[in-house]
């Protein structure tokens, strides 16, 4: 009978091989939008001025306390517009994915829009390695990574948005505790 069912047995040895070599070396990245493209999409024809901000340890603690989400980096990537709108670029870490996204906040601190800039996927445990994450701060580890730049489509388990939800929660707390006061001072 011509079956419609194909059975594959995946070799257990793959796990060992991957653990030692592939996991460290391979992931893929998709760039959906550059920062400029996201700014243009979220708020057309607005000129943005970048503010460079480094959160103090106390600020990190209070943001974490208010949002109940841990802060990944003390460096904040924030832009402001003449009308008081803020454009923030942030990263979140999921089970398999590292997502860079942008949020447009109104002068009153409400979310006006969200766009995904980059999506990088790799094996779940690798993504939590400090040195792997460090590539997003510096460039030290990038040369060790083989990014698959072709069209990559993955099937198998829904990617949850819960990390982005948490990321936005963290940014809203950051607004309340840091950005709001910054503007009035």
């Amino acid at each position, binding site marked *: *009978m011509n*079956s*419609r*069912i*194909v*059975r*594959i*047995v*995946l*070799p*257990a*040895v*793959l*796990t*060992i091989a*991957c*653990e030692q070599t*592939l*996991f460290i070396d*391979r*992931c*893929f990245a*998709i760039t*959906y*939008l550059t920062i400029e493209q996201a700014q243009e999409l979220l708020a057309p024809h607005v000129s943005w001025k970048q503010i460079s901000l480094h959160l103090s340890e106390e600020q990190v603690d209070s943001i974490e306390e208010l949002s109940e989400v841990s802060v990944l980096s003390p460096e904040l990537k924030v832009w402001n517009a003449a009308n008081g709108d803020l454009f923030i670029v942030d990263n979140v870490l999921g*089970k*398999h994915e590292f*997502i860079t*996204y942008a949020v447009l906040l109104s002068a009153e601190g409400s979310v006006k829009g*969200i*766009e*995904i800039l980059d*999506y990088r*996927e*790799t*094996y*779940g*445990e690798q993504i939590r390695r400090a040195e792997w994450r460090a590539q997003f701060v510096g460039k030290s580890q990038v040369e060790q990574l083989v990014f698959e730049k072709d*069209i*990559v*489509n*993955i*099937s*198998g*388990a*829904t*990617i*949850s*948005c819960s990390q*982005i*939800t948490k990321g936005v929660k963290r940014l809203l707390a950051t607004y309340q505790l840091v950005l709001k006061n910054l503007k009035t001072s």
Partner: protein
Amino acid sequence: MIRRAKPFLLGTIVDITVFDDVTNAADAIDAAFQRIQEIHESMSFHVQSSDLSKINSCQIPSVLNVSKDLIKVLSVCLDLNKNSEGIFNPAVAAILQKMGKLPVSKGIANLNLSVLSDSIVIESDSKVLVKQAVCLDLGGIAKGYAVDEACKVLKDYGLINALVNAGGDIKALGPKTHNIKIRHPYAGINSDYTADISEQAFATSAPYLDPQMPAHVDGRNGYVYSGNEVVSIKAKDCIYADALCKIAFFLNEDKLEQLLEYYDAEMIVASISQNMHNAGKFSIESKEGYASR
């Protein structure tokens, strides 16, 4: 080529790629996201004002006016419920959630699920009769439907080759061949486990990744699948690929062949070699930590 992604649609990230070099590609993508948003709003279990929530909270009996999308999805649900001998049942996951317990290895003896058609009857393309109190969750099928509808929008814009991926529920519009990577239970995307699709839909169910989620539940008895098999379905429409890869975990093989034949679908089942179970630190137990986080 243009590629965009949006979060929060249907609880996942939806990724749309257009391969044609045309000026209206960005508009087409926006319209497709808009269409998915519409479907999301009508079928969300969590949004109080959704048409689905109306069904879940109405007086019994009631005839409700709901979106045409919801009617289409419910009619497919009724079909699948009947053809899968009750395994596919959008009423079951919500019941388990409400009960606050997820039996992992045993079903619930007195779950007492009736056949879906005892509870809801479709009266017209915008009216549904709710005969018995139900609590439906379309999580196992709405994404597939939304992907199909998004592809229709892209086609209406005159696009030839495009791909829509809603968290792993994928459909390819046009003749271009796409290689889809399927996550290996332990190697993630580093597996060389792939499938090619062209003018087809593809969906994968990997219950090992979300052991706490009642996504793979036998609608007859509430049994939650807890093995480490990964099932992928290739079908013409994503709504069937999405639903069939849930049914596959519980239906016996002969019936499954018939069902795949009926919906003109193909299935790939991947499991881990038996050595896995004896591989010490690479055992399933030691790896579940990362899956459940």
